[in-house]
C-alpha cells in the first residue's frame, strides 16, 4: 500500500474555508488527506500550531489565506506571509524539510484552485515520504543525551 500523507490545513474563514466549501458544493475531486482546521484569519496561525501539528504526526501543513489585498481583516494575510518563511527556516534548522509547510492564497470563488492546491500538496508530501520524528526529540533530557552522543551534531 502506498504512503498516504497525513496533512493539516489551516484555512481562513473568509476566503479559503469558503473556497473549500465551494469545492465541496461544486463536487470537485481532491485527495482526502487534508484535515482542515478553520481559523478566522491566516494571521491567526501561530507558528506553534504548525510545529504542534508536525509533532503530533502530521506529514505536512498547508496554510491558506485570502489573496494579498483581499484580506477580510485588512492585512492579516500579510502577517502570515511574514511569519511562514521564518517558520520554514526554523524547520530547516530542525532537520525538517521546509517544503512540508506551504502557504497558498485561495479566494472564496476558487473552489477548483483549492482542489488543485490540495492535490499538488498531497503529491509533494507523498514524494517526500513520512515525517519521521525521533522519539527522543520530545524529551529534553533524552535529546541532550542524544546530541552529546552525536557530538553536538543533531540529525
Amino acid at each position: 500500500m502506498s504512503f498516504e500523507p497525513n496533512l493539516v490545513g489551516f484555512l481562513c474563514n473568509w476566503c479559503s474555508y469558503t473556497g473549500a466549501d465551494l469545492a465541496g458544493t461544486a463536487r470537485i475531486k481532491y485527495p482526502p488527506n487534508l484535515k482542515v482546521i478553520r481559523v478566522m484569519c491566516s494571521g491567526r496561525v501561530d507558528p506553534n500550531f504548525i510545529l504542534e501539528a508536525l509533532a503530533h504526526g502530521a506529514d505536512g501543513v498547508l496554510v491558506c489565506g485570502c489573496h494579498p489585498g483581499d484580506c477580510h481583516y485588512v492585512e492579516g494575510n500579510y502577517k502570515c506571509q511574514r511569519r511562514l518563511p521564518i517558520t520554514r527556516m526554523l524547520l530547516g534548522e530542525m532537520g525538517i524539510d521546509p517544503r512540508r509547510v506551504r502557504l497558498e492564497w485561495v479566494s472564496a470563488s476558487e473552489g477548483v484552485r483549492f482542489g488543485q492546491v490540495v492535490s499538488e500538496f498531497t503529491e509533494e508530501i507523498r514524494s517526500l515520504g513520512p515525517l519521521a520524528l525521533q522519539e527522543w526529540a520530545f524529551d529534553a533530557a533524552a535529546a541532550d543525551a542524544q546530541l552529546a552522543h552525536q557530538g553536538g551534531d543533531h540529525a
Partner: protein
Amino acid sequence: MPKVNMTVDGRPITVDEGSYVLQAAEALGIEIPTLCFFKYVKPYAACRICVVEAKNKRGRTRIVTACNYPASEGIEILTRTPRVMAARKLNLEMLMSRCAPMPVLTDLARKLGIDQPRWGTGTDMCILCGLCVRVCDEIVGAQAIGFASRGIERFVTTPFEVDSDACILCGACAALCPTGHIRMEEASDREVVHSEITLGPNAAISVPFRQAVPNAPRIDPEFCVHFRTGGCKVCASVCPKECISHDDVERFEEVEVGTVVLATGYQDFDPTPFKQYGYGRLPNVITSMEFERMNNAAGSTGGKILLENGKEPRAIAILHCIGSRDENAHPYCSRVCCMYALKFAHLVKEKTSAEVYQLYIDLRAFGKGYEEFFHRILEEGVNVIRGKGAEVVSAGRDCQEGSLIVRCEDTLAAKFREIPVDMVVLCTALEANRDAKDVARRFGISVGADGWFIERHPKLGPVSTTTDGIFLAGVCQSPKDIPDTVAQGSGAAAHAMSLMIRGEVEMDGAYAVIDDEVCSGCRLCNDLCPYSAIGFDETKKTSSVNPALCKACGTCAAGCPSGAIRALHFADDQIYAEIEGILS
C-alpha cells in the same frame, strides 16, 4: 428697482423703470404686433411693426417702437391711433415689397387690413429680424452668424460667408427663425445614424427616463449649450421656481448607514472586438440596447424601426449569445437575451412587415409564461434557426433581398445558410462592471471569476454576503431578469430591515481578551491590530482589547510572545485540541 406709473391706451399700470413699453402692454393684455421680439434676447426694433404713439409729460407725441422704448413716469402710450395703424401698414408694406409672401407676413397684413401691398411682393425669405443673430450671440454665445452688407443689400450669413467653425450646431437660430429661412439640414442624405443614437435622452435637459428616482430633469453637459459656450441658461430664466443651477457640481456626501444593499448592476458587452459581426464597421448592425432605444417612443426615431437611410428594413436578423456562452468572451449564459430577443421579434412583427430571423444556440424560455410566449412568436411567423450567427458581411450590390448577409450553420437542417437581411441586432452579454472588484473590496465581499459578487451561500444565502449587513440585489450578483431581480431586491430590503428594526447589533462571541497577569506590556499587539482595537494602559503597563472594535481575526493572539492573548472560540488550547483530535 424703482417703479414708474404709466398708461397704455388710457389704462394705468405700474412697471419697473427701464422696462419696455411692449412688456407693459403685454401685462395689460393689449396686443402689439411684432416680428422681431423674443423675450430672452435684447429688443432690436428691426421690424418696426410694434410702433406706438408715446405722449410725454409735456404733451408731445411721437411714434416709437414699443419693444425697445423704455417706460418712464407719466408717459401715455396709444397703440391703436390712426397714425400708429398707418405707420404699421407702411412699414409692413415696405417689408413685403422685398420679401416673399410668407404666411408670417400675409397673416399680419390681413390683420392690419392690407388687401394688396402697394409695392407688390418680393422673393427674399429673410425678414432681417435678426433673431438668429441675436440668439447666437446673446444666448448661445457662439457668434457664428451675423449681418453682412448694409441697406437693401443686408443679409444674414456666417463670417466671410464660409462654413463657420464657431457654429456648434445647436439649431437655436433655425428654431427661432419665423420664416423658415434658416434650416437645419443633414449634410449628406442619411436620416438615421445608428452609431449616433445615444442610449439616453438626446435633449440637453430632460428627465433621464420616466421611472427615474428622483423624477427630476437633469442637465447633460455633453449636449448643453451652456457648457460648450458659457452662454444660454435659458432654462434657468424660464423656470418659475428658479430650480436650475448651472454651477451645481457633483459632490460626495457621507451618509452613515448600518446596512448596505449592493445593486450595482452590470455593463453591456462591447461587440466591437468581435470583428466577424461587423459592429461599428457595417451599417445597420446594432446592439440590443440600441435597438431597444430605437423602439422607445421617447427615443431618437420616435419608436420606429428604421435603417440608416431612413427606410423600413425588409428583414432583420437577431443574433443570440454575442459574448455569452462563448469561450472567447464569457462562458456563462446571460439569461435574459433569449426572452428579449423574442420580444424584439414580436415588436418587429407589430411595427413593420419585415421578416425576422432568430439565430440561437439553445432557446432558454425558462420562466413563467416564457415558453408560451415563444410559441406565440412561432405562430407570428418568426423564422427561428438553431445555429449561432457566425458572420455578418455586406451583401453584394446585386443582392435584391438585403444589404447584409448573415452566415450560420442551421444545425437542425444540417446545412450552411446565408440569410440576406437589412438589419442585424446583436444580443450582447451582460458583463460584470469594470470596477466590481474595487467595489467588492470596499465592502469586504468577494467577486467570482466572472466578476459577479459572491453570495453567502448559492442556495441558502442568495441575498446576503460574507460581511454582515451587506446584501446583494440584481445582476451584480449574477445575470437575472426583472422578476428575479425584484424578488432578490425585496429579499435584500427585508434582510436589511430585519437588522435595522432590532435597533441593536448582536455582537459575535468571538473576540480577543488579554490576560493582565501574563501581559508583559511589550505593545507588539498594538501595532498588529488592523482595527486599532488594542489600547495600552499606561498605569497598569498592560495592553487591553476593546471588544466592540475587535473583529476576532486573532492576528494578535498569534503574535503575542508571552501567550497572554486569548482569541475566544479560537484559543490556542482549543486549536491544539483540534490538532490532536484530527491527528489521533
